[in-house]
């Protein structure tokens, strides 16, 4: 969805920033958002500073929106990992180049076999 939404809206994005925090995402405010995600999930004591950075660059409503999206994907990641949700074959084929380029296979723990 990142790639398709960036394409649909004409927004520049460097997808490598998804897995490499040292890369500039190019998205407006992207570096601040990336830093915020990192410290929130690591429960770092620098959370307040990272939040202030997002608010300064994008506004307080955007900070709240970012926190809500992080929270939602904390939920969805646990649902996916906990239930062994596989990525569909069509999605794998469509995104094969991206999956390989970002090295995402290392996160794939589903085995595609039915529950018994």
């Amino acid at each position, binding site marked *: 969805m*990142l790639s398709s939404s960036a394409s649909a*809206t004409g927004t520049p994005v460097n997808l490598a920033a998804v897995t490499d925090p040292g890369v500039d995402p190019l*998205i407006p405010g992207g570096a601040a958002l990336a830093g915020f995600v990192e410290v*929130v999930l690591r429960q770092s004591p620098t959370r307040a500073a990272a939040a202030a950075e997002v608010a300064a660059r994008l506004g307080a409503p955007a900070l709240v929106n970012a926190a809500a*999206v992080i929270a939602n994907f904390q*939920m969805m990641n646990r649902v996916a*990992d906990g*239930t062994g949700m596989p990525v569909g074959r069509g999605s794998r084929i469509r995104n094969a180049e991206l999956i390989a380029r970002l090295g995402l296979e290392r*996160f794939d723990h589903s085995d595609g076999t039915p*529950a018994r």
Partner: protein
Amino acid sequence: MTSPPSAPDPLPVPAEIVANLRSAWEEVAAPGASFTGEQRVAITAEARRAWSGEAAGSAPEDAGLPPAAGEAARRLAASPHGIRRPWVEDIVGGGLGYAGYVEIVGIVSRVVASDTFTDALGLAGAPLPDPRPGPPSGEIAAVARPGQAWVPMVGATSITQALSLVPAENAALERYHGPMYLAFEEMADPAISRALTRPQMEFVAARTSAVNECFY
């Protein structure tokens, strides 16, 4: 009395998010399909301990749950990327059954999400709710079948059906999803925006999943 998360003053938290967090907390305290309100709050307590890095407690066992319930809550909260199918099968076989396990996945995922939201914004987390009385409903989707995932679901294997073995949990997931991110029916619009643009939201989502080592 159940206490909702504290008011988000002075941050401009939309009313629908405040209501969402309150509803999620109230749902945790109510009887579920397999567990009583007391047991669900005990699962919540254990998940919260694990997510905050505290040592394991005994709340699930004290509430009459098998040890597998506490183990599931801890793993789902603190290190879900390490979950594999054999572990799920051990947990399911440890006295929970698939329905009990799916209910725990639902509870823990929303508790960690809510705590993440408040923590991210420097807000006080809600105290544990008081359990509501009553027996478990026993409402399980009899039509759920094994598919390509590790737990039975209703219909085709899909993330939107992930918890459908326990209809109340799947409904709770969908209710939570909309105010925090996008409603399921909004997700097909690549240009939809909130305070963040859709690409910004998707970047946050993708980076979150990467840090969590979640392939999906």
